[in-house]
């Protein structure tokens, strides 16, 4: 079943004509309303009217996460602040969060695209959706929430945490669709078993999982343990939130990107050059219909490729394959985006701590564990245990406070943190080892 048949099955030719129309008006809009873009265009001697075809996209400047930070908080808004009805923000140390704004129409579009995504996953108005994505500044919870309501299904806005209660309500309410990070789904399974319950007590048939990287292996594990169909959802707050793309239940092979709203291309992350269709590289997205904060050629840093083969579900919107990695050093820990740079900033801001650190990621059962190893230098060292333990506790508290992740902080001897090619090897990710 399709939520919006005419748009979702629009012939490619019509779809591309629509994209071009929207791109032209977008370019004009950002040029005249966002000083950041006007400056960029001027620096490149580019005028909005020079964009005449979709292939001219490559002449437009990129937008990077740093540009959002540099224009913190509302510098990239293309509408007066009065017209912005909602703001979301990503985690970050003070002043470095990335902020996104939405007009009422943006919120409506988002709900619409999430409803499309839900139906793409096989959902209908009869479903009860257990939404374990976090509610708040993070886009996951509210994004899903509005989509479920738009579809007309029943939403259970349970958010994250309180796993025992989650399991109980899932059984008592007869939830049919689970939305969470894939690792939380496995954690829920363990809690179901630990509570002495059986999967037969539940009515789940589908899971919509995103916000962190996962593998086919993890998919089959979730599917066999929870006895559901597990589907991948894509989104990022800078572009909108969840629902930028969704895997269909028919093919279960790649995620349809809603191309009437998002223009996608794949570039070589090193050179910034567009890659031929079908090649693997970094996904770049241009928002075609965003009002409050439209972005031109936003570099997602997600590595994937575009699959242009028509899908058996009938949708004409092209698919991207499962995200294969990142072109930067961003880590996703229990669904939270963490840059090593942020940890470094926290260490620098913790008195007496030198920023020599290593991040070690492991998986205990289904949960990501983060260990931060910090080198003890002479300035920080003390002959008293309690002094060092205080520092450990303080670092841990600051990481939790600023990034929202719980880390185990371990003090280590200097230079015991592996150096490679003269540079410290900062990250050891053993989660998929």
């Amino acid at each position: 079943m399709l939520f919006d048949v005419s748009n979702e099955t629009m012939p490619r030719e019509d779809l591309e004509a629509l994209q071009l129309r929207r791109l032209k008006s977008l370019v004009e809009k950002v040029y005249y309303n966002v000083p950041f873009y006007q400056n960029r265009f001027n620096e490149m001697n580019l005028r909005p009217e020079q964009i005449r075809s979709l292939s001219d996209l490559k002449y437009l400047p990129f937008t990077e996460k740093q540009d959002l930070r540099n224009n913190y908080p509302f510098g990239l808004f293309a509408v007066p602040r009065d017209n912005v009805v909602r703001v979301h923000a990503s985690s970050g140390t003070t002043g470095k969060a990335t902020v996104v704004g939405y007009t009422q129409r943006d919120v409506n579009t988002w709900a619409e695209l999430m409803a499309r995504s839900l139906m793409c996953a096989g959902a209908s108005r009869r479903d009860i959706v257990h939404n374990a994505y976090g509610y708040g500044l993070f886009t996951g919870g509210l994004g899903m929430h509005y989509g479920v309501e738009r579809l007309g299904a029943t939403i259970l806005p349970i958010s994250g945490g309180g796993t025992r209660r989650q399991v109980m309500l899932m059984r008592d309410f007869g939830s049919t669709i689970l939305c969470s990070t894939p690792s939380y789904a496995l954690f829920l399974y363990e809690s179901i078993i630990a509570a002495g319950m059986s999967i037969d007590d539940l009515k789940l048939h589908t899971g919509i999982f995103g916000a962190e990287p996962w593998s086919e292996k993890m998919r089959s594990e979730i599917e066999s343990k929870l006895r559901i169909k597990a589907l991948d959802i894509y989104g990022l707050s800078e572009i909108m939130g969840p629902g930028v793309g969704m895997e269909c239940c028919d093919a279960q092979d790649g995620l349809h990107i809603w191309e009437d709203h998002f223009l996608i291309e794949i570039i070589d992350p090193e050179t910034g050059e567009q890659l031929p269709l079908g090649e693997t590289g970094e996904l770049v997205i241009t928002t075609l219909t965003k009002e409050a904060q439209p972005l031109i050629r936003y570099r997602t840093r997600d590595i994937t490729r575009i699959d242009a083969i028509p899908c058996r579900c009938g949708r004409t919107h092209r698919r991207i394959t499962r995200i294969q990695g990142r072109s930067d050093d961003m880590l996703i820990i229990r669904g939270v985006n963490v840059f090593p740079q942020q940890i470094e900033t926290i260490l620098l801001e913790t008195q007496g701590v030198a920023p020599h650190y290593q991040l070690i990621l492991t998986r205990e059962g289904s949960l990501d564990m983060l260990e931060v190893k910090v080198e003890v230098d002479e300035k920080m060292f003390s002959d008293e245990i309690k002094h060092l333990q205080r520092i450990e506790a303080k670092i841990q508290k600051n990481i939790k406070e600023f990034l929202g992740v719980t880390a185990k902080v371990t003090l280590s001897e200097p230079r015991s943190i592996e150096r490679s090619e003269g540079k410290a090897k900062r990250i050891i990710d053993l989660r998929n080892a």
Partner: protein
Amino acid sequence: MKVEQISVFLENRAGRLAEVTKTLAENQINIRALSLADTSDFGILRLIVTDNEKAKEALKAKGFTVGRTNVVAAEVGDKPGGLHAILEMLNAGGVNVEYMYAFVTQSGRNAILIFRFDRTDQAIEVLQKNNVRVLSGEELYSL
């Protein structure tokens, strides 16, 4: 009348302590007294050695984090109640002991107590007022 103690940060893994003692041995440095405090993932080795400067340089060269602290060495008769009497007078003088360790001299008649206080100067004053012998660094290293 303070005595310099060096302290070394150690990760809680096999061979780290031996690496310290090996370094000291190779540099002909004798250990007068030591204590090791540990947690689940790290430890702090505190040492009184015959040559602080040399020990510190040698350990730093091996990549260890080394600190220096002033401690107080007090001599008591090696008999029941010796330590207790000292703790009583410190308590009465309002001085806190952060940590301490002890060893018995070769003669066997006396014990040397190494104290780390929160207020070192005040502690020395209390001890001396009560006629406790407080050892200088020179005296301690040459025992």
